[in-house]
């Protein structure tokens, strides 16, 4: 078999003429379906390049099929494209091939090198696509491959291009390709360096720094451009670290907001708090499964529906826990600690028995994936939404405590239980609702965390320590303190991480926190007033 492939390769490389080219390209493409070896992937790669250059009208279709993983080959090197309904058409002609079955054909395998070639080829072919987003995508692909072979196509496309964003990207792609073209003049190359320097991001830096070591004016200009880009990126990296810190802080805030109620306001050391978060994440999973089965049309907003559901389920579990367990333990922090710690193990094992020990797959909706550029910042959508969501949750919580009758009663009970009881407030019932509120908020946090972390029975364990840290640091019983505490810890952590490494960074944060709490035992924003002194 290797000999056959080598022969094929030879034919592909040697035979001239565009029609013959295309035929051999088809042959070459089939190689990796029949054998796995470095040679077979090389053959496929050459096949793609040949096909793209051949001008064969089916080239885009066939390469597209390879990209989508629907290109198959049989033992005689004939290629077929699988249709969405499972039938096959001949790749060469596009005619139906009714007598081909799944057993006759094998998938043409693709590896990363081949995938790069596919992207470059498709990019070149799609530079003239009618819609601007496809052209933008194509220009990006050509920029990434910066293959000089794409230069003539780029030139033609640039002359026709009317969309300014696409045009700019095409110019950059042209500059990148020029820099790796051996026959480009020095003036052209210097222009290209200037274009990339103006682009000023990591991809541009990557192309330029490959040249920076060379001697001559191009090398010098490239080196200067790299220095300038580095300088630019360095300034932005501070802002980027702040953003990462706020993002981490918002996750901590979400996890800790519920605890700020149960521990901060009620004073219950709730070691099962993390499990409330975990339950919220599993509610998200169940909601998605149900919606997938019964309401597929609304699947895109499943997360929005999961938020109130998680609040209700976790809140209900919280009320049950308070009524059945915690109310017997008020005023006995040690027993509460032990009991809720045991409870957390029980809840974990219950979930493990119900759903299995494996991670569950919670989908990220399209509007939450990917990233966008803002100046030199890369902002990922899911993190951005979580930041907004965290602040919304805290704002809603504060409003609930301040403006609702329930909030008023909660504050009354925490400030002076006996007086509140004397005024006719059913204090045990308020206790249960307060605990339920805290647990419900934890459940909401679970919905957000399902987007960035594993949905597994252990999800909560990773957040319980951090949550306590945030609440103690911010000042027990103070939601503003919790918010600022979470953000401070997040930002400090993200600034330390690049300097000290993730492991040492965490340790330093812990040490700093211990020192801080030693000096200020009541945290950043201690509650003042008689309730504290009493």
């Amino acid at each position: 078999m290797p000999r056959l492939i080598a022969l094929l390769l030879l034919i592909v490389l040697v035979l001239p003429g565009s029609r013959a080219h295309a035929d051999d390209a088809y042959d070459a493409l089939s190689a990796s379906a029949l054998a796995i070896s470095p040679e077979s992937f090389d053959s496929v790669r050459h096949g793609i390049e040949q096909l793209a250059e051949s001008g064969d009208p089916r080239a885009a279709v066939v390469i597209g099929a390879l990209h989508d993983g629907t290109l198959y080959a049989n033992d005689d090197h004939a290629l077929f494209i699988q249709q969405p309904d499972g039938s096959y058409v001949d790749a060469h002609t596009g005619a139906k091939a009714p007598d081909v079955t799944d057993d006759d054909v094998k998938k043409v395998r693709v590896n990363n090198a081949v995938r790069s070639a596919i992207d470059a080829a498709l990019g070149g072919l799609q530079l003239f696509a009618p819609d601007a987003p496809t052209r933008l995508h194509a220009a990006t692909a050509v920029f990434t491959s910066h293959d000089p072979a794409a230069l003539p196509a780029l030139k033609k496309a640039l002359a026709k291009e009317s969309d300014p964003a696409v045009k700019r990207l095409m110019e950059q792609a042209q500059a990148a390709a020029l820099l790796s073209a051996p026959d480009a003049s020095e003036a052209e190359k210097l222009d290209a360096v200037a274009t990339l320097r103006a682009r000023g991001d990591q991809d541009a830096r990557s192309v330029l720094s490959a040249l920076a070591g060379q001697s001559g004016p191009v090398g010098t200009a490239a080196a200067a451009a790299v220095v300038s880009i580095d300088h630019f990126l360095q300034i932005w990296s501070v802002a980027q670290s702040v953003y990462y810190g706020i993002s981490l802080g918002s996750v901590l805030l979400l996890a800790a907001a519920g605890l700020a109620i149960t521990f901060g306001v009620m004073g219950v050391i709730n070691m099962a708090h993390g499990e409330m978060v975990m339950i919220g994440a599993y509610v998200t999973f169940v909601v998605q499964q149900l919606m997938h089965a019964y309401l597929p049309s609304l699947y895109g907003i499943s997360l929005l529906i999961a938020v109130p559901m998680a609040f209700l389920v976790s809140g209900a579990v919280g009320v049950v826990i308070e009524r059945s367990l915690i109310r017997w333990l008020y005023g006995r922090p040690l027993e509460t600690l032990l009991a809720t710690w045991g409870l957390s193990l029980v809840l974990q094992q219950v979930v493990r028995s119900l759903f299995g020990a494996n991670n569950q797959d919670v989908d990220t909706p399209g509007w939450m994936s990917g990233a966008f550029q803002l100046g030199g910042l890369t902002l990922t959508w899911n993190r951005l939404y979580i930041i907004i969501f965290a602040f919304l949750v805290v704002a809603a919580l504060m409003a609930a405590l301040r403006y609702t009758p329930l909030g008023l009663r909660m504050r009354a009970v925490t400030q002076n239980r006996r007086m509140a009881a004397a005024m006719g407030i059913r204090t045990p019932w308020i206790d249960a609702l307060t605990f339920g509120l805290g647990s419900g908020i934890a459940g909401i946090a679970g919905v957000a965390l399902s987007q960035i972390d594993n949905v597994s029975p252990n999800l909560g364990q990773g957040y319980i320590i951090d949550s306590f840290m945030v609440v103690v640091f911010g000042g027990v019983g103070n939601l503003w303190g919790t918010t600022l505490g979470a953000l401070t810890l997040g930002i400090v952590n993200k600034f330390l991480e690049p300097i000290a490494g993730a492991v040492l960074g965490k340790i330093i944060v812990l040490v700093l926190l211990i020192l801080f709490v030693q000096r200020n035992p009541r945290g950043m924003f201690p509650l003042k007033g008689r309730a504290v002194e009493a």
Partner: protein
Amino acid sequence: MSLDEPILSRRGLGRLGVAAATLAAVGAVKAASTPAEAQATGGTIKVGVLHSLSGTMAISETTLKDVMLMLIEQQNKKGGLLGKKLEAVVVDPASNWPLFAEKARQLISVDKCAAVFGCWTSVSRKSVLPVFEELNGILFYPVQYEGQECSRNVFYTGAAPNQQAIPAVDYLMKENKVKRWVLAGTDYVYPRTTNQILEAYLKMKGVAQEDIMINYTPFGQSDWQNIVSSIKTFGSAGKKTAVVSTINGDANVPFYKELGNQGIKATDIPVVAFSVGEEELAGVDTKPLLGHLAAWNYFESVDTRENKAFIKEWKAFTKNPKRTTNDPMEAHYIGFNMWVKGVEKAGTTDPDAVIDALIGVSVPNLSGGYSALMPNHHITKPVLIGEIQPDGQFNIVSETPGLVVAQEWSPYVEDTKDLIGDWRAPLKCGAFNVKTGTCTSGKKA
């Protein structure tokens, strides 16, 4: 309501510490008193299964318990072993390393298990090692690990670094022309040792110090934003860059999610992982991960008759058509069949006889060849490299032409480059220094 009581006074903290210690002790006693499935009876041969069924490692190890039960059931259907039925003794060490040692002791001395199949993390293996050596038990360890160990009582059916890490690095060097390397791992013994070996190997291959970036993160790291971003920066130096990941367990999902979100594609910066298999990917949307790599000795997508039969039996046994198979499962499949053959060869389950009989035993693996147990208590394996597909399976893009023999002591690390392990008579030594001609450790007294 206890706002009137300071919650974290210093004395309180001390009391909490005591409470935590008490809790840990209670947990240990509770788990230790779980009854083993049966008491010793005359007509059966007992096989210990020492995998965590609760705690953090349950995600990976529960599957291995199930596969052992399946293998034992199949063997019993074939008529058992030496005319006796096999009986599984399942215990739960609860992802708690000291408890592993306790449970191992119970399996050998109370339940009298003829062999034990178990452990996942290196730290759990290290904690049971003295028990197996003291009580002369037999342990089959099914997970790829860092090497640098060769005990008489342990049979390593997972990959040593040269059966996984080094071929993967070679593949990236050759196929993707990678010049810059990020070695990212969780902070514990397996990644540290593997990265030490890889670093030495890369330098030997002429990679400069500034082209290697090493990064460790704590267990369960869930915020990868600036680490992924620094990898991106490291990769923008104009040289092809790849990440070699020894990130363990649950930390992988957030890591891959962050990679996908920050738009790092496998065609830009490929990530090759040694601890990510079909099971770990079950909880991830793999579409953004297309083309990232993993190196193993087995993938579920291996296209052989043996593998198809195994997957069919597995799905029937678990009554779940969605259950995946993975590399450590294959290691148990091989290890169990080797043990069966070894016992048949020895004609007894006596540990000394079986340990000697096992060397040289050869059984079919699932990728279409035979794996043999070598004198260093490791097995020969093919090395496969797969790329992640949108359906969570791996597309095999490279396989070694033959089987690879394990190097239990790494030749790339200064301290161990002269050591070999050979448990055949007359050498009978786990760490024999070929330069000085002495047995440095692991010699059977």
